């Protein structure tokens, strides 16, 4: 097979069509529903095809439908698909009304056939529809077309930047279980004994390596050693202290938070970004994803952890920049927005708190489902809902809590 240039599927969409992308980025399949007459419509448009109302809302819809017809395209005018034919497409009548052109999973039997449809982000980061078998089949995620849309860690090489934390260790275990070929695990102070790290280091897939995200040389050396092999980078490095502004003197703690949470991401992005972008078109085991451990506090400041919130807000902004720069290569940047994690830095916070293992599970699911913004756990879900509902009200609620 000839070396692939980082070709992407056609990414241009009208503004109204990007509503489907916004939902798919968070793992939801939404179509436009008319508030006036309840019609569901697709392709997206700015008024209702039935009653002409413009009160259209993107709403979750059921993916059930019937495959009316299908084809396997062997000749495409598009350079991305030209390299990937044969390519299976289906025409689906969704139970809720509209007719959809979908990418068709290889295990969906010929029409007529029941199936389910979902929206996924493609390599260009834009939502596309996929027809899947009505019920799960073995090794469903291995489908060649589906794998173009996902970042499944199976068969891939992963760097977890910090294995000292509970979240880092949970992620390493989960990645190993998910079939990652090789997992490099960074630890910033190799001479220090860290609880749990030995157990992780004993996994056959794992290689420990020194990595300190606050040290430019350390990041550069690690990138020089393994940067050209990393398919998925999971940045778990995090510095977290409680307190806001008034209860602390000086800027030392805030600087340390920024140095890990913001500058650490920047250093990693500068050193690992170029090599990963260059390898994004390497076929089924290409460089594929970059995962950032952010915080729900990145959306709105939690004064009790005020400087930490600020560093995560800075990291979120930088991660959006990273996503924009990775997109042309087809690399997905996944941001995690957990609520308080059940670790030593949140001991004083009352439950519910999210367990490190739950975060790890959410990361694996996001990689497999091609999602780019993840709000794991009930707390994160609720904060997101409050933020969506009214960010100003949330600011007051957080100030009072």
């Amino acid at each position, binding site marked *: 097979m000839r070396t692939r240039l980082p070709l992407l*599927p*056609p*990414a*241009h*969409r*009208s503004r109204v*069509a990007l509503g489907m992308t916004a939902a798919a980025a968070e793992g939801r399949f939404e179509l436009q529903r008319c508030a006036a007459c309840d019609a569901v419509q*697709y*392709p*997206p*448009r700015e008024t209702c095809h039935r009653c002409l109302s413009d009160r259209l809302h993107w709403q979750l819809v059921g993916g059930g439908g019937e495959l*009316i*017809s*299908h*084809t*396997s*395209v*062997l*000749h*495409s*005018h*598009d350079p*991305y*698909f030209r390299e*990937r*034919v044969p*390519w299976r*497409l289906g*025409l689906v*009548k969704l139970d809720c009304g509209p*007719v*959809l*052109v*979908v*990418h068709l999973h290889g295990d969906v039997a010929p*029409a007529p056939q029941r199936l389910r449809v979902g929206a996924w982000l*493609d390599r*260009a980061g*834009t939502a*596309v529809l996929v027809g899947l078998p009505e019920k799960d089949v073995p090794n469903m995620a291995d489908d060649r077309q589906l794998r173009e849309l996902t970042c499944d860690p199976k068969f891939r090489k992963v760097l977890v930047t910090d294995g000292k934390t509970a979240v880092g260790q949970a992620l390493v275990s989960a990645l190993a279980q998910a079939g990652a070929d090789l997992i490099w695990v960074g630890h910033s102070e190799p001479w220090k004994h860290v609880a749990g790290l030995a157990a992780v280091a004993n996994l056959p897939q794992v290689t420990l390596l020194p990595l300190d995200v606050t040290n430019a040389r350390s990041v550069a050396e690690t990138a020089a050693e393994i940067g050209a092999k990393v398919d998925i980078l999971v940045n778990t490095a995090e510095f977290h202290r409680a307190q806001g502004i008034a209860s602390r003197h000086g800027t030392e703690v805030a600087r340390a938070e920024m140095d890990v949470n913001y500058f650490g991401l920047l250093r990693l992005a500068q050193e690992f970004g170029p090599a990963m972008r260059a390898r994004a078109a390497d076929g089924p085991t290409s460089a594929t994803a970059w995962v950032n451990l952010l915080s729900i506090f990145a959306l709105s400041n939690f004064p009790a952890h005020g400087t930490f919130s600020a560093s995560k807000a800075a990291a979120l902004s930088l991660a959006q920049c990273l996503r924009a720069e990775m997109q042309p290569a087809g690399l997905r940047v996944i941001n995690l927005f957990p609520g308080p994690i059940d670790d030593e830095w949140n001991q004083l916070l009352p439950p519910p708190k999210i367990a490190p293992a739950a975060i790890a599970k959410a990361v694996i699911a996001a990689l497999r489902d091609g999602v780019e913004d993840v709000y794991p756990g009930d707390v994160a879900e609720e904060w997101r809902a409050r933020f969506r509902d009214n960010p100003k009200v949330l600011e007051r609620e957080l100030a009072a809590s």
Partner: protein
Amino acid sequence: MTARAPYAGVAIAVPVTEPYVRYSIRSAHWFVASVLAKLLQQSGLEKLAIDGLCVSSFLLAPDSAVGLTQNLGMSPRWLDHVPMGGASAVVALRRAARAVQAGDADVVACIAGDTNHVDSFRATLGNFSQFARDAVYPYGAGGPNASFAFLTDYYMRTTGAQRADFGKLCVAQRDNALSNPLALFKQRLTLEQYLVARPIAVPLHLYDCVMPCAGGEGVLVMSTDRAQSLRLPYVNLLGAIERHNAYPEDPIQMRGGWAVDRDDLYAQAGLGPADMDLLELYDDYPVINAMQLEDLGFCAKGEAPQFIRKNTFTTTGTMPLNTSGGQLSVGQAGAAGGYLGLVEAVRQLTGQPLGEAVPNARHALVSGFGMINYDRGLCSGALVLSRGDA
């Protein structure tokens, strides 16, 4: 509904073609201009005598028919731009005929022309429509191939049509093309070659798809009096229909707008399917031929496969179909593809065919179909034409 007024007194004359080429470095404007020049040359009219202009072209942008008036040095008192792809000729003719009847124009030049650069087909696909850009192009479908593959798959499954049935139409049209000096495909096609050709989008194979090319077509529309005084052989327009976005509730396009309006068409023409001596059906894929045979009343719904097995479709055989070879054998010159059948029908009915003549041709049916906006073609139409002395 108000009864459709007849197209009495309208003549369609001077069928011209700017010969097709696979690729051209010329612009669409050049093809339109060269068709106009041929219309003038063959009618003997001065350019300023053409006081109506109707243009169809995919690749005129950023210009439209408006810019062409200055480009071509014309001052028409009636101007239209019909961006309806394969339905352009039918729609243009309906409008031009009414303009002539009403006295809004004396002589209307109806012209379609398009160029084809090496990359223009792909570029056109990406910008074809908002729905195509949002909901088809990102799937690698690359234009109408996938849409017609869906339809062909469904049609075969529900009617029992075989690839050989579609192949028979393609082979017959190729036979018809062999006597047409302007057809881009000049070699005989066998059913065996059709069946073993490489797949493009299953179940479509190579010879089910048209080849994009450059070229132009045109006719003049005027009163029969004017045509007679100019001593131009002409045809009469007996009936005409158009319909857009027919049957939107159908989950897949198994019928087109023809089925809605065909009774009107035949009533207006005072003729029926059995009276047609030749069919010029829009043929970007053979399944569309089959659908039109049904929707235009030549056989019952779903029975085109049997109808195909019973006829030869060759110019001198039974049910002569696409007698110049159709787009499948002549090539698809963008919007001019919508005019190919009209121009050929006028040639046949006025006794000036480029290739073999349909014996004693008196009536022709010409159809149009165009604009795969998302999952189906939105525009459909048809004309019934008769020999001028009929």
